[in-house]
C-alpha cells in the first residue's frame, strides 16, 4: 500500500514537471513582465530544483499539510474537505441507484441466462452502455430539468443544510452516473449468477427441494457478487476523486472539477495534494473491499484477483 | 541387505528428502520429511498413501518442480540439486513425468504434432524429417495411429488417448526414469487396463525405471516391484511389493489393504476401521504420527516416534508394534539404502 502511494506521488510530481507552464501564468496579469515572473516563481519556491521541492512537499504532506493553493489562497486540505461531500454524496447516490437497477435485473437475467429476458436485458444494457455519458447527461437535463422541470439542471445544495433538497439537487447527475454504471454491474452479476447456478452446490440445493427464489437469494447471490464488488470498489475509489465529466456538465463543486481546474491553471500544489488524496482514498476503499470479501467469503487464504 | 551387487548406481536415488511449503502468513508446512528410496534400472517403485500425504510432492521434488528443503536426489549418480539452469535443462530429458489428469496435461491450443515436437525443439533435437520419424515411432509405441492423430487437438480425444499422448511426449526424449503421478486414477476401468498394460509393456521393452504413484493398491500390485507406503510425509512401510501386500506389518498398511473392495461378492469385506481423520500436517501428533488413528496405539507411541527399521525379512517399518511377520521374505527388497536399515 505504501509502495502504491509512493509510486503515485512520484508519478504525479514528475508528470507535473513535464507539463508546460506554471501556476505563475495563471496568476499574472496579461501584461506581466519577466521580472515579475521571476519574482513570483521565487516567492512560490518554483525555482528550487525538483527533488528539493518534492522532498519539501513530501515532508509537509507526511505532517498532514498539503500546502495552500497559490491561486485561490485556499489550503488544499480545506479545498478537499469543502468539495469532498459533494463527490461522496454523488458517488453514494449513484452507486445506490446503480445497484438498485442492476441487482434485480442482473439476478433476473442471470437466472434466465440464454432466454429471451436475458437477451433483452443484455441488449438493453449494451444500448445504454453505448451512449456516452455526456450525451446521456444532456438528454436527462433536457428531459427532466427543462421539459418536465422535476429536477434542477445544475447546482448543489449542501447536504448538511437540507438533506432532501441536496439529494434532489444531485438526482440528475447521480442518475446519469448510475445509468452509465448499472449496465456494467448488470452484466457482471448476470454472468456470475449464471455460472454460479451451474455449480454443483446449486444442484444440491435444488435436490434439497429449495425453490428457485430461495436458491437465488440464499445460495447464488453471495458467491456471485465478487466481481461486482471488485468493480464497485474500483468505481467507488475513482468516484471519490470526483466524476469530472458529470461534475462539469452539472456544475457540481466536487473534487473532479477541482482536479480539472487545477490542471488547466497549473495549480500544482492543489493537484499534487489532490492526487495523493485520491490515491489514499482509492487504497482505503480497496482495503474496505478486501474486508467485504472476507465477510462475504470467509474462506481463509482465498485471494481474489484484485 | 546389500543392493544387488552391480557397479552401476541406481537410476534414482533419493536420500533424506525434505519438501517444505511456505504458506501464506509465514507458516511452513513440511509436506515430505526425511524420505529416502532408490530405484534400480528397469524397476518400478510404487508410492502409496492417503490423499495429501505428500506423494505428489515427492514426484515434483524428483522432477525439480518444487524446491527441496533438504536431502539429495541423484539421477544415475548425479546430484540434481546443485545443478543450475542449463545443466539441469540438459539433464531433464533423462527423467520425465506423466500426470494424473490426461486432459489437463495437454495444452488445449496445440495439435498433437506440436505437443510432441515441443520437447524436441526445447532440447535442440529438432530436425524436420528425423523428428517426424521419431514422433511417428513414439506414437506407434504407445499404440496410437499417427496418421490420424497428428493434426488434431487434445479435446478431440478420449481420456485414454490423451494419456497415451502424454506418455508419448514423455517417451520422445528417451528418458531412463518415468515418474507417474496417479496416471490412471482419472481413467475408466476399461481404459485404465489399456494404460496399465502399456506401461508394463514399456517397462519391459525399454527397460524404463518408474516411480509410480497411486492410492489404488490393486493397480500398484499390478505395476510395482516394490512399494513404499507413505503417511503424513514419511514412509511408514516399504519393501517388496508382493510380500508387503501379502503380509503387511504396519497397521496403516493393514488398514489400507483392508479397504480394498473386491469385485467379487465372495470375498468378504474384512475392514480394519481407522479412527478419526488424518491430522493436519501443520500440527503433527507427538510421537508416532499414525497413533491418533491406530487401532493398536499404546503409551509408547505417544512418547517416541518410531524410526524406519528393517524387519528380519528385509522390509522396513516405522512402527513400535509391527504385525508379526508370518514367514520370511523369499526375495527381500534391496532397494533401500543400507544406512536406513538398522542393524
Amino acid at each position, binding site marked *: 500500500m505504501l509502495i502504491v502511494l509512493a509510486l503515485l506521488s512520484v508519478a504525479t510530481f514528475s508528470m507535473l514537471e513535464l507539463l508546460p507552464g506554471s501556476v505563475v501564468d495563471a496568476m499574472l496579469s496579461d501584461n506581466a513582465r519577466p521580472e515579475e515572473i521571476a519574482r513570483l516563481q521565487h516567492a512560490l519556491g518554483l525555482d528550487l530544483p525538483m527533488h528539493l521541492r518534492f522532498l519539501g512537499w513530501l515532508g509537509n504532506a507526511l505532517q498532514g499539510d498539503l500546502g495552500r*493553493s497559490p*491561486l*485561490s*489562497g485556499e489550503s488544499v486540505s480545506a479545498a478537499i474537505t469543502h468539495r469532498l461531500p459533494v463527490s461522496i454524496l454523488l458517488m453514494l447516490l449513484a452507486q445506490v441507484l446503480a445497484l438498485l437497477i442492476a441487482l434485480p435485473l442482473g439476478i433476473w437475467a442471470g437466472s434466465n441466462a440464454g432466454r429471451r429476458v436475458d437477451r433483452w436485458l443484455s441488449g438493453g444494457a449494451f444500448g445504454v452502455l453505448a451512449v456516452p455519458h455526456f450525451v446521456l447527461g444532456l438528454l436527462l437535463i433536457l428531459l427532466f430539468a427543462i421539459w418536465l422541470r422535476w429536477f434542477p439542471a*445544475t*447546482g448543489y445544495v449542501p447536504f448538511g443544510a437540507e438533506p432532501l433538497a441536496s439529494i434532489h439537487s444531485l438526482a440528475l447527475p447521480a442518475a446519469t452516473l448510475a445509468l452509465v454504471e448499472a449496465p456494467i454491474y448488470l452484466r457482471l452479476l448476470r454472468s456470475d449468477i449464471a455460472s454460479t447456478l451451474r455449480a454443483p452446490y446449486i444442484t444440491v440445493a435444488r435436490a434439497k427441494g429449495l425453490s428457485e427464489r430461495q436458491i437465488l437469494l440464499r445460495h447464488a447471490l453471495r458467491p456471485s457478487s465478487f466481481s461486482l464488488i471488485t468493480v464497485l470498489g474500483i468505481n467507488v475509489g475513482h468516484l471519490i476523486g470526483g466524476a469530472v465529466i458529470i461534475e462539469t456538465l452539472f*456544475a457540481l463543486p466536487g473534487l473532479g472539477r477541482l482536479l480539472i481546474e487545477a490542471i488547466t491553471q497549473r495549480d500544482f500544489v492543489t493537484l499534487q495534494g489532490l492526487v495523493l488524496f485520491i490515491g489514499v482514498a482509492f487504497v482505503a476503499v480497496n482495503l474496505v473491499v478486501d474486508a467485504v470479501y472476507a465477510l462475504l467469503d470467509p474462506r481463509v487464504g482465498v485471494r481474489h484477483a484484485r | 541387505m546389500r543392493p544387488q551387487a552391480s557397479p552401476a548406481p541406481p537410476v534414482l536415488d533419493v536420500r533424506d528428502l525434505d519438501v517444505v511449503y511456505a504458506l501464506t502468513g509465514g507458516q511452513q508446512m513440511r509436506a515430505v520429511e526425511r524420505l529416502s528410496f532408490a530405484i534400480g534400472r528397469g524397476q518400478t517403485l510404487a508410492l502409496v498413501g492417503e490423499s495429501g500425504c505428500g506423494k505428489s510432492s515427492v514426484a515434483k521434488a524428483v522432477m525439480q518442480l518444487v524446491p527441496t528443503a533438504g536431502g539429495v536426489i541423484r539421477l544415475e549418480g548425479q546430484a540434481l540439486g546443485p545443478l543450475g539452469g542449463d545443466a539441469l535443462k540438459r539433464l531433464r530429458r533423462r527423467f520425465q513425468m506423466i500426470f494424473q489428469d490426461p486432459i489437463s496435461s495437454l495444452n488445449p491450443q496445440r495439435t498433437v504434432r506440436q505437443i510432441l515436437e515441443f520437447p524436441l525443439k526445447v532440447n535442440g533435437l529438432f530436425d524436420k524429417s528425423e523428428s517426424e520419424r521419431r514422433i511417428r515411432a513414439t506414437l506407434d509405441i504407445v499404440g496410437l495411429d499417427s496418421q490420424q492423430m497428428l493434426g488434431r487437438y487434445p479435446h478431440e480425444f478420449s481420456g485414454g488417448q490423451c494419456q497415451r499422448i502424454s506418455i508419448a511426449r514423455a517417451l520422445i526424449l528417451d528418458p531412463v526414469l518415468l515418474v507417474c503421478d496417479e496416471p490412471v486414477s482419472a481413467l475408466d476401468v476399461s481404459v485404465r487396463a489399456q494404460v496399465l498394460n502399456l506401461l508394463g509393456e514399456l517397462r519391459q521393452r525399454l527397460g524404463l525405471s518408474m516411480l509410480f504413484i497411486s492410492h489404488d493398491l490393486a493397480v500398484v500390485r499390478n505395476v510395482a516391484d516394490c512399494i513404499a507406503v507413505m503417511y503424513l510425509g514419511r514412509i511408514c512401510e516399504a519393501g517388496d511389493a508382493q510380500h508387503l501386500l501379502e503380509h503387511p506389518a504396519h497397521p496403516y498398511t493393514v488398514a489400507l489393504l483392508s479397504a480394498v473392495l473386491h469385485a467379487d461378492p465372495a470375498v468378504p469385506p474384512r475392514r480394519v476401521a481407522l479412527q478419526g481423520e488424518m491430522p493436519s500436517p501443520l500440527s503433527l501428533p507427538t510421537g508416532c504420527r499414525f497413533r491418533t488413528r491406530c487401532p493398536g496405539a499404546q503409551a509408547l507411541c505417544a512418547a517416541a516416534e518410531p524410526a524406519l527399521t528393517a524387519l528380519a525379512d528385509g522390509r522396513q517399518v516405522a512402527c513400535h508394534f509391527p504385525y508379526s511377520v508370518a514367514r520370511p521374505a523369499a526375495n527381500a527388497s534391496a532397494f533401500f539404502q543400507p544406512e536406513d536399515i538398522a542393524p
Partner: protein
Amino acid sequence: QKRGGTLTIGMEAEFSGFNPAKARIFNQNTLAPASSVLETLFVFEGAQIVPRLGLDYAEAPDRLSATVRLRPGVTFHDGTPFNADAVVAHYAWLLAPGTGINLSPIAPLKTVEKVDEMSVRFVLRQPWVALQSALAAENLVNFIGSPAALKNDPEGFHRKPIGTGPFIFKEWQAGDRIVMERNPHYWEPQLPYLERLIYRVLPDANTRYQSIKSGQVDIGRMDTASHVLDARKNPQIKVHEYQGSGAISWNFNAAKEPFNDQRVRAAVVHAFNAKAMLDTFFLGTTVATTDLFGPNSPWFCPRLNWRSHDLAKARALLAEVGKPVKFQLVSTNTPTGRRQAGMVQQFAKEAGMEVDIRLTEQSQNVRVGLSGDYQMGVWRFGDITGEPDGALAYYFGGENGTPVSRHDTARIDALLGKARAEPDQARRKALYCDIAQIVSDEAYQLIPIRVTYYAIASPKVRNLGPITNSIIRTRSVWIGQ
C-alpha cells in the same frame, strides 16, 4: 417593495482572488463580485463619470496633480473608517517598489498625498488628462479595500475582500460559489435592495444556460449565439445586451515570419470573412467592426478607412508577396476557440494560405502571447469605457514594454504622448482616430467583429444597469415578481 431577495449569478470561470498583488487585475470574472464588495473613487455610468467614494475631482493647472475630495461617513466592512489615510495607504501600498502589482492602468501616477482628513492629492510624473477616467475604471488596482485588512492579512483579503461596497463578502467556496450579504450600513441609505448575492461558477456555457432556463440561476453572462437566440424566443427569459468597443481580435506576431511582412498581415485581414462568421457563428447577434471603438463609443471614428473582407485584395497582396504563406494559429481549446480557429483556417484557405492550428489552454494563452512563441494568436480587445489612453498604450504602445504583436511602436507612442497632454477632447479624439487608422493600415491586429455583451436573466431581475466591460453590477438591482 424593492427590498429583499437573493440574486444568483452564473459566472463563467472560477475567481482569481482579490488581492491585486496576487491576482490578475483585469479579470472580468473576478471584477464582477469585486464590484459588489469594493468601490472605486469614481465610476462610469454609461459614458459619464460619476462620484462614488470620491466626491469631486479638481485638476491642478499644470495638470501634474489633481485633488479628490472624499465621501464622508463611510466605513469599511471591518469598521475601519474611510478617509484620506485609507486612500493614501492604499496607493502607497500599490506604489511601493517590488510588489509586482501590475500598475499599467495608473502608470503615470507618482504618489498620493493627504491634503486633509477628507481629501487627497494625486501627483503625476507627466501631464495626464485621463487620470480621472483611469481612476474610474473598475479593476483591482482602483478598488479601495480596507488598508488594515490588506496589510495585516493579505492572504485573507485575497480570499475575502473587505471594502466599503453595498455587499459584505461572506465566503468563497473555491470553484463553487461566492456568497455575499447586504451591507446594512451602506452609505447610500436605501441601497442595496438585495438581501443576498450568490455568484456561482458555471464554466460550461450550456450548463449555465440550462441553469438560467430552469431557474437555478437568475442571471448570467452568455455569449453563445445559439443560446442568445434561444433565449430571445423564450418569454420566460430576458436578454440584456450592451455593445461597447470590445471586439474579437487576433494578433499577428510582427517579429516573426511571415507576419513581419505588412502585406501578409493585411492579406489575412482582407481574407477574413466577417459576414460569414457573423452569420454562422454569431447568428446575427453582433456586428462587424468599422473602427477600433464601435458606434456606441464617444471615440467612434466614422471616417476611418478600415480594412475588411475583400478576397480579391487578399489574393492580390499574396501575389505580391510571391511565396506561399503558411502559418500556425494558436487558439484556446474551448469550444469557441476551436470553432473560430477552424473558421479562420477556412478563410485563409480561400485566399490561398495554409493554416494549422495549435490549441492551448486558456491560462497558457497569456504565456504564449508574452513569450512571443506564436505566429498568429487569439487575443481580445477589451471594452473601453472612458479615456482610451490606457488600453491603446497597452495594446499598441511600447512604453510599458513591447506589445504582444511586437510591432514598431514609435509612431503610435508619439501620438499617444500627444493625446495624453491634450486637454481638448475633440482633438484628442482625432489623435486616437489616427492611431486607429495606423492599426488598420499596418494590420497589427485582426479586429473584425464587435463583441456584444449579453446577459440572460429571469425577468424578475430589475434595474440592471448596462453590462459594460461584461460586468454584471448588483448595486441597484432588485427582484420583482
